[in-house]
């Protein structure tokens, strides 16, 4: 087993385990901390996929900014008391069955995919450049410049909207 395979299985198991923690843990703060752990493990998986730039963004934006926002809201609403246990109900059982069905369908579909020979990776120069900030930035600021600017407008609208919705009186 190569080092990459060991790292993949360790981080994949940690990702799935901490993601299950988000769903299973009763205390919302525990769920949020479990989600932070999931984001960090996922960033490690992204590095294994040679996506270093996105991995750094994942830690900065998700584990940093978004999770701080979540924790602020949880503490603002003082929801840290433990809620009631999850009771079985018809809709919940139905939801679990639907999820299991979707997972089974996806696994069956993905098993039929060819493994992919990664033929392009035989060129060491391309592998070294792939996913670096230089290459991602070059594509982002030339080919995808307009969507990039549109996203900045979207963030502005979301910011104004969040203030308008959350403020009791303007």
């Amino acid at each position, binding site marked *: 087993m190569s080092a*990459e*395979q060991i790292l*993949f299985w360790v981080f994949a198991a940690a*990702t*799935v385990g901490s*993601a299950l923690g*988000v*769903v299973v843990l009763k205390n919302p703060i525990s*769920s949020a901390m479990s989600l932070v752990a999931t*984001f960090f493990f*996922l960033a490690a*998986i*992204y590095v*294994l*996929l040679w*996506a270093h730039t*996105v991995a750094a*963004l*994942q830690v900065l*934006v*998700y584990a940093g900014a*978004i999770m701080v*926002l*979540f924790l602020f*809201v949880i503490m603002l*609403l003082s*929801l840290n008391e433990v*809620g009631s246990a*999850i009771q079985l109900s018809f*809709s919940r059982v139905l*939801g*679990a069955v*639907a999820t*299991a069905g979707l*997972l089974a369908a*996806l*696994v069956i579909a*993905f098993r039929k*995919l060819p493994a*992919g020979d*990664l033929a*392009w*990776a035989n060129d060491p120069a*391309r592998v070294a450049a*792939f*996913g670096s900030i230089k290459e*991602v930035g070059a*594509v982002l600021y030339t*080919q995808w410049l307009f*969507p990039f600017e549109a*996203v900045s407008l*979207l*963030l502005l609208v*979301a910011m104004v*909207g*969040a*203030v308008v*919705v*959350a403020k*009791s009186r303007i």
Partner: protein
Amino acid sequence: MPFQAIPTPHYLMLAAALFCIGMLGVLVRRNALVVFMCIELMLNAANLTFLAFARDRGDVTGHISAFFIIAVAAAEAAVGLAIVIAVFRSRGTVNIEEIQTMKH
């Protein structure tokens, strides 16, 4: 292939597992904040799929898609949490079973 890389379907199955865990949380949990966290999990599963195919094809455009998903998730979290605060202020609860004024 000059080295032993993890095949792409492994990453896709991890993304499928992550998406299904998020979907289970959305369907089973009743706390609106936890439901939001599970939506973030599903968005991350989509990101993982994009990055897996980006490496498979040697095309960095998948990284751009992941970048945009992260930006949209940040906007979604800001607006969603503002709505949760507004609902909590008017109803005093974030349990989505007790918020059913719009239920037909």
